[in-house]
């Protein structure tokens, strides 16, 4: 029978695309499996990981069960070694048409955001981009809204549905929208890396993972581009997403950027953290793009976020406002960053920064 994305009753199960690069599975795959597990439990269905590559390491595939996958579809083929839109789209669409999952989650990486829309267009279904929150259960969704919205939840009607409720920022974070895809399957979503938390690895469930080896139908005629090379940047990238402490610099360092970044590094060092930046600093070429926090950079939720000379534009806030504690130093008392901060100091970062570093070092020494 021909595949029909409108036959919603025929679809069952939650799938997660587990992206690998160079044979290593990206962190977003584990994050999405951990989140997908909760959705699958709410629905009472299976959670499956989907792994594409060449010479796929079975141990890696099995390990996906440690984060919640009941089953992993392994698509192993020489033409799947590195990502190409054509090959990955074909293999995923073939798989969806055969096994019909009701939900399909993909990490919103530069590759996921190339692949997701192409797959959704071919299957004729909806895709919600860059989601930051997912729910099945309406009560859980209401509880989420109570802490994250201005909606009077108890006096608002909610359509009771088991559809996936996919929440994402819109208009640069000025507005949040929850999207559903009621009449087409699978319900597809790309999810921002770093937003979902990875569950602790469970060896017992990993041992029970069922591996399904997929008979991949692919020839070089299916691929219409030549991948000439993949180049990694030589420099080690900063791990903003995994950091407990992020000290970010903004345009406020412009007077003496070198010293400004040094001040941030020193503060980050005493706190055991890493240095981030606003887009203004990245655009000015003062620091590399991997440091950028915000809507078009990374989403972080460290224990401590320090903003030095950052005004607090909504696009910046979108990437850091869920940090546990936010400390801001800005010489302008009315800078919007203070409205999002737990603690604020109105002052010159070139003076306050080093003083803070010293005070923390002194405090830590006294406790040691």
């Amino acid at each position, binding site marked *: 029978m021909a595949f029909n994305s409108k036959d919603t009753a025929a679809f069952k199960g939650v799938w997660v695309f587990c992206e690998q690069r160079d044979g290593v599975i990206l962190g977003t795959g584990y994050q999405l499996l951990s989140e997908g597990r909760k959705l699958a439990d709410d629905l009472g269905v299976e959670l499956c990981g989907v792994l594409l590559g060449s010479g796929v390491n079975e141990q890696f595939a099995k390990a996906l069960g440690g984060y919640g996958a009941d089953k992993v579809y392994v698509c192993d083929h020489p033409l799947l070694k590195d990502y190409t839109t054509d090959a990955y789209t074909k293999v995923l669409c073939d798989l969806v048409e055969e096994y019909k999952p009701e939900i399909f989650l993909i990490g919103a990486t530069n590759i996921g955001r190339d692949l997701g*829309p192409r797959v959704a267009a071919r299957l004729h279904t909806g895709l919600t981009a860059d989601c930051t929150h997912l729910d099945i259960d309406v009560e859980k969704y209401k509880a989420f809204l109570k802490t994250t919205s201005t909606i009077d939840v108890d006096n608002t009607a909610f359509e009771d549905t088991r559809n996936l409720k996919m929440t994402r920022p819109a208009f640069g974070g000025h507005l949040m929208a*929850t999207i559903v895809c009621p009449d087409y399957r699978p319900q597809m979503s790309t999810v921002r890396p770093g937003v979902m938390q990875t569950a602790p690895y469970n060896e017992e469930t990993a041992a029970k993972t069922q591996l399904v080896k997929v008979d991949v139908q692919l020839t070089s005629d299916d691929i219409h581009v030549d991948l000439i090379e993949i180049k990694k940047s030589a420099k080690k990238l900063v791990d903003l997403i995994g950091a407990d402490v992020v000290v970010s610099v903004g345009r406020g360092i412009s007077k003496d950027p070198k010293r400004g970044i040094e001040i941030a590094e020193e503060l980050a060092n005493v706190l055991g953290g890493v240095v981030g930046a606003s887009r203004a600093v990245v655009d000015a070429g003062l620091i590399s793009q991997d440091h950028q926090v915000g809507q078009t950079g990374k989403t972080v939720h460290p224990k401590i976020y320090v903003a030095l000379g950052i005004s607090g534009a909504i696009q910046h806030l979108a990437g850091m406002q869920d940090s546990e504690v936010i400390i801001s130093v800005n010489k302008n008392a009315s800078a919007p960053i203070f409205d999002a901060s737990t603690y*604020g100091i109105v002052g010159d970062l070139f003076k306050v920064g080093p*003083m803070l570093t010293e005070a923390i070092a002194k405090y830590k020494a006294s406790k040691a």
Partner: protein
Amino acid sequence: MKIIVCVKQVPDTSGVVAVKEDGTMDRAAMATISNPDDMNALEAALQLKDADKDVKVVVVSMGPPPTESMLRECLAMGADEAYLISAREFGGADTWATSSTLTAAINKIGVDKDDIVMCGRQAIDGDTAQVGPQIAEKLGLPQVTYVTAIDYSNGRLTVRRALEDGYMTIGVQTPCVLTCIKELNEPRYMSVSGIMGCYAKPYTVWDFNALSDDPAITVEQVGLKGSPTQVYKSFSPPVKGKGTMMEGADKAACDQLVSILGEKHII
């Protein structure tokens, strides 16, 4: 050779943003701009035209009638022709329905063997980055997204595609679809002669009927009705109360902050 560039007029989300009481965006109250990534796509097309005067650059936009102002600006920057796709039926479209409509328009304009379709990676109002790849799928053409460099010779493109930790170099034959990001180039300004001439260049408006010969353009398949995704709820994030502001910005203030952080076991 022809380059079709898809452009969108968007509310300026970096400026004042007006939210209506029902939690939706008050577009009418906001300033509009040409979507930044789309201007990088247009610039890339114009650079290919600078190198070869036989290249024709065609801009296409779906949007309400005031979108004309943006399309005229594109013509003033150097594009040769503009199409506005505008009809009530197309309103409320998600990326699936938008890409179907734009694909129908692009097919009507015609994609020949040596042509290229270019889009911005994403629009700043929705930030989805989905329309470009979905147009590519519906046109049945190869795509390269996140393009940061383009090298063209004789129908073959060598493009660089940004990854989070580096880049890919990809070879692709025309016709194809590229989506462009700001690292690609610096969009030019309109020239004085361009502004003078932009009203004399071909400008066409296509409504629903103009595209309805295409089997993908029916009332059920475009606009809100043709959109698989729907808004379940939209809401504004709560404004967080101001936190504790330290007195002064001296050593004493820093010591006080550190002792609070210590007491609360934050450090």
